[in-house]
């Protein structure tokens, strides 16, 4: 690992940059970025978001850990992102290794190479980065000269498909976890690295909060299912727990958000207003694995926005969470911020808003200082019946009432998100999406008195995810998904009266099958990922790079030797007894509760939100010794300064 000297590769890289697209993404130097002297630190992290810079830079997770680590004495963190194929080819030709953008040091020279996986579609990019870095692809081939390769992020809740390639995984909130890992690495280095990598990994594993796949053996049944997952050495826990940060006000990160020079997907000051969600949507992995709900206080939010805007100069504030309008004081937050920044042309956005939590006061606060862009809601299911199955308790009347308010207050465009392929779904459930859209248009025309009203239906295939009640569900095949979407398209297009006012956007079923294979895969899927990578697979989240055929061909080559295939992982329904590949990773959710919730789904029985009703025993709070933390605090945001109070500095030199 850890080269005590690490030379910058920038001189070599610089010669390649004139030949690649958007070279600015590789040079670093962003406002609020940090470069600490290599020698002044004894624990060094390279943090990667395994996608292009434009997607990776705004990622909150990486930004938070980067700042938390760099604030520590003797610790440095630098960032690295996936390089586009044009630069990858040049780097291979000229032997330039994977580098960090902060000081352009080789990733291989760091103590830890931490990757944050928001999605499974970044796995091939991890292999590209490892290979470019000169780090052996498989953990078993690494030596003391290599960093510890650590996975985090939501996809790490089932790290089994990448078990061969990572040394360890941390599940849950990273803020405190990275500091604990740092402490252990520091002690081990100070002692002169006793016992080599294995000892370090063991010290991490025995905390119970770091999963080291190499310390567990997977045994299979003759039919291909898992018999059991068992520790192969003593002192290693049977199950590994997720990490939960309890007081968000104590962790007001990022304080100094990075401001890129290159254009990125989100250019705004983002503040996470709460973490976790207990709405209980059964398809939603994020909602399940981030429990319990923990709110940031209204004053904490106000302070972060104030400091963040000063540090960045962004002109938009994003209030992030899984369902932002559910914050117990969202109205006061929105009004307080809109009041504060009225004169500064700062816009506010709530990226995730539930239909039933939306109201017009909120909408007006959000648009007061900015543009009135489209409104987006996610009913997810077209029929009342399927919404009961998925526990998305939004009635069609709620939706119509909300859009009527929106259209009546000047909005002209509403976007609706849906999923296709939900458990128990029939053609009819999906075709009702068209009826819903026509009701929306009809209502919009009625309340606005105008025909210039639009509604866009956006729909994609549902992928069952680990640690959700749908983890046992069969995934709909790509062919059936496409057929059902085709019927919906024909129904919408065929509507003479309303069809032209309804936009229809859909994703075909193929990428969902690959995502499904990776989401609920086990260690045998590693061979597929490696084959795809070796065949040139990169940037699987990008339509122009993704190849379904390549994935299927590689799966056909590798999986038959295990007696399984892609359908076995995707469209097969699992039973209660089956050992799931991620059962030894503890998200806090009780497996029996998940199973009951799955049975409730099949019975079309809804479950309330435990923020407002008694506990449903999902298991998280007792298991993790955590609790729901919500307001209201009753506080308000005060103006920061007296408007126009201070005299402007005079304009001329004296």
């Amino acid at each position, binding site marked *: 690992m850890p080269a005590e000297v690490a030379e910058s590769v*920038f*001189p070599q890289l*610089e*010669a390649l*940059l*004139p*030949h690649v697209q*958007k*070279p*600015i993404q*590789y*040079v*670093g*130097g*962003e*406002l609020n970025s940090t470069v600490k002297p290599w020698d002044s630190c004894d624990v060094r992290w390279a943090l990667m978001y395994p996608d292009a810079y434009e997607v990776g830079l705004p990622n909150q997770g990486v930004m938070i850990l980067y700042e938390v680590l760099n604030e520590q004495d003797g610790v440095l963190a630098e960032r690295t992102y996936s390089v586009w194929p044009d630069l990858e080819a040049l780097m291979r030709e000229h032997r330039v290794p994977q580098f960090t953008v902060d000081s352009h040091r080789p990733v291989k020279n760091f103590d830890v190479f931490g990757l944050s996986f928001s999605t499974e579609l970044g796995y091939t990019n991890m292999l590209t980065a490892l290979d470019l870095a000169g780090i052996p692809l498989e953990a078993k081939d690494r030596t003391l000269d290599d960093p510890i390769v650590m996975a985090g992020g939501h996809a790490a809740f089932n790290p089994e498909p990448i078990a061969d390639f990572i040394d360890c995984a941390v599940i849950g909130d990273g803020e405190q976890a990275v500091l604990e890992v740092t402490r252990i690495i520091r002690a081990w280095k100070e002692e002169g690295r006793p016992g080599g990598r294995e000892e370090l990994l063991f010290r991490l594993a025995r905390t119970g909060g770091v999963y080291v796949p190499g310390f567990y053996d997977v045994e299979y049944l003759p039919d291909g299912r898992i018999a059991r997952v068992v520790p192969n050495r003593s002192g290693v826990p049977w199950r590994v727990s997720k990490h939960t940060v309890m007081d968000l006000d104590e962790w007001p990160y990022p304080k100094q958000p990075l*401001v890129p*020079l*290159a*254009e990125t997907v989100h*250019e705004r000051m983002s503040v996470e207003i709460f973490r976790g969600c207990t709405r209980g949507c059964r398809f939603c992995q994020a909602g399940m694995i981030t429990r319990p709900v923990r709110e940031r206080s209204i004053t904490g939010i106000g302070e972060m926005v104030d400091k963040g*805007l*000063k*540090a*960045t*100069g*962004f*002109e938009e504030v994003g209030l992030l969470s899984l369902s932002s309008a559910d914050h117990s004081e969202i109205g006061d937050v929105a009004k307080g911020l809109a009041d504060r920044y009225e004169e*500064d*042309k700062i816009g506010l956005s709530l990226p995730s808003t539930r239909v039933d939590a939306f109201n017009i006061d909120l909408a007006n606060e959000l648009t007061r200082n900015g*543009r009135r862009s489209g409104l987006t809601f996610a009913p997810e299911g077209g029929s009342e019946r399927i919404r009961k199955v998925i526990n998305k308790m939004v009635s069609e009347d709620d939706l119509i009432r909300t859009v009527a308010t929106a259209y009546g207050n000047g909005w002209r465009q509403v976007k609706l998100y849906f999923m296709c392929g939900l458990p128990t779904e029939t053609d009819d459930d999906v075709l009702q999406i068209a009826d819903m859209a026509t009701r929306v248009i009809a209502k919009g025309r009625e309340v606005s008195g105008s025909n210039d009203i639009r509604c866009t239906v956006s729909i994609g295939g549902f992928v069952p995810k680990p640690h959700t009640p749908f983890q046992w569900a069969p995934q709909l095949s790509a062919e059936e998904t496409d057929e059902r979407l085709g019927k919906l398209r024909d129904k919408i297009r065929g509507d003479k009266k309303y069809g032209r006012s309804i936009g229809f956007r859909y994703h075909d079923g193929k990428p969902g099958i690959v995502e499904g294979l990776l989401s609920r895969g086990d260690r045998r899927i590693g061979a597929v990922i490696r084959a795809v990578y070796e065949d040139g697979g990169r940037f699987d989240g990008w339509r122009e790079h993704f190849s379904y055929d390549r994935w299927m061909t590689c799966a056909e080559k590798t999986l038959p030797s295990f007696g399984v295939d892609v359908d076995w992982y995707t469209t097969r329904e699992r039973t209660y007894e089956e050992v799931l590949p991620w059962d030894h990773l503890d998200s806090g959710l009780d497996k029996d509760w998940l199973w009951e919730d799955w049975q409730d789904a099949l019975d079309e029985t809804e479950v309330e939100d435990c923020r407002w009703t008694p506990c449903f025993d999902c298991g998280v709070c007792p298991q993790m010794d955590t609790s729901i933390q919500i307001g209201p605090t009753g506080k308000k945001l005060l103006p920061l300064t007296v408007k126009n109070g201070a005299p*402007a*500095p*005079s*304009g*001329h*030199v004296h």
Partner: protein
Amino acid sequence: MQRIRLRYTKRGRLRFTSHRDFQRAFERALRRAEVPMAYSAGFTPHPKVSYANAAPTGTGSEAEYLEIALTEPRDPERLRGLLDESMPAGLDIVEAVEARTSGLADRLTASVWELRLDGVSPEDARRAVDVFEAAGTVEVQRRTKNGIRTFDARSAVVALESADAHSSQPDRPTDQPCAILRLVVRHVTPAVRPDDVLSGLRAVADLAPPVPAAVTRLAQGLFDEETGTVTDPLAPDREAAATEPHPAGATAAATAPA
């Protein structure tokens, strides 16, 4: 309304900043520095910033110019300092004057460039320059959005010389040969960029640097035909400020010197 003209740089690795990237960064810096910007009217108001003649992505510059419009007067030097602090190091705001004359863009008629050719011996460079200078026209090609375009790279060049090799970038290793060219080129349409001159050197004299040239704009301004020099485009504003320290308003200065 007060107008302030700024000179800024693109140094080091931030020379890979595209002009669009710079614009976004600069507009954020205006917010961070709490500059009382004038905004355009319309549905999506934009701060009033006029950019002039930006250097291509990947080339460094010591002499980029822009002009901003303010709703309240500010001391130019203080404003410069605030903006400079708000920009990433390398995109440095190095000079500020209050606009007292019209037509900054009209005063940018030529540029002085330095082309550093690592791995090329000064003798080879000098020989190529001589061939280039002797040619009447030097046809080069450039890939544009509309396909390959062919044009003359010679006539816009008013001076091209192989300077004595003292490195302007002392951080570079110097154990290999290195030629430094100084280029003065008029701003014409289609623009002749340092790249085009390098293409020309390759076309007429087979000069092919083993690594991409490090190109830096040293100055731009009005080309003085008599002396063959490029003059400071902010000088007229500075002179006007010296003779009339307290203008009634910057817009009143309608007479363009030079």
